[in-house]
């Protein structure tokens, strides 16, 4: 098998802890691949003048059956929550299996070239 060039664009991982649910990637994606659900919670801290509103990410999906791997989402994310991986080998038996959620996007796909347990 040929060596996969470094920096090859095969998959995008999500650092869910860094994501602020700002929706910028969702709006900039030319293909509408990304879907986000989130809600805000009030966090009260001792001594604070008022509670803070914090966005909580409920759902983040990328539909790899649509994605054109342009990298716009990676470029525009102000919080560096999206990162390229060179994993390329994650074929699916059903199209809906190519919709990856928060749990699937944390690491390159299981069984793929870049997956490490």
């Amino acid at each position, binding site marked *: *098998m040929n060596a996969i060039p470094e920096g090859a664009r095969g998959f995008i991982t999500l650092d869910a802890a860094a994501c602020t649910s700002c929706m910028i990637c969702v709006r900039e994606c030319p293909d509408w691949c990304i879907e986000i659900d989130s809600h805000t919670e009030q966090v009260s801290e001792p001594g604070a003048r008022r509670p803070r509103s914090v966005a909580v990410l409920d759902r983040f999906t990328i539909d790899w*059956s649509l994605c054109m791997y342009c990298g716009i989402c990676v470029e525009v994310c102000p919080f560096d929550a999206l990162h390229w991986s060179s994993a390329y080998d994650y074929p699916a038996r059903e199209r809906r299996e190519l919709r990856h959620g928060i749990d699937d996007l944390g690491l390159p796909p299981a069984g793929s070239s870049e997956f490490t347990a």
Partner: protein
Amino acid sequence: MRSYVVASAPHVRVHVRDLGLACCAVEFASAVASGLLLPAPVDDAGAGALNVLVVSGTVTDALAPAVLDEWQALPEPKAAVSFGACSNSGGPYWDSYSVTPGIDTVIPVTTYVPGCPPRPEALVAALVSVGGAAA
């Protein structure tokens, strides 16, 4: 129909009718040119070999009947591999009036290969998984 064997897994014998409709077909050609797929010997049409239709590229509604004809003409046992975003879902053109939003609206797809385009190695990985599951 052109027949190939997978170089890294010679036990997987696939007969591939490459239906290259757009830029993804270049990656198919690259898989052949780089030796990942090898032309099968002429006498390799043996019993039990899996016939794989690889559809790569943008299928328009005008072209969809040609894809269906290819599929119906393919002898059993057979499988269809959708190679790349356009054949998976319509890709960047999913909302176009003239583009078929996924070839699985036309033929039954065994495996979807994500990518725009997918790497040649991704084609090989998909063929191995299809061929392995059929064996």
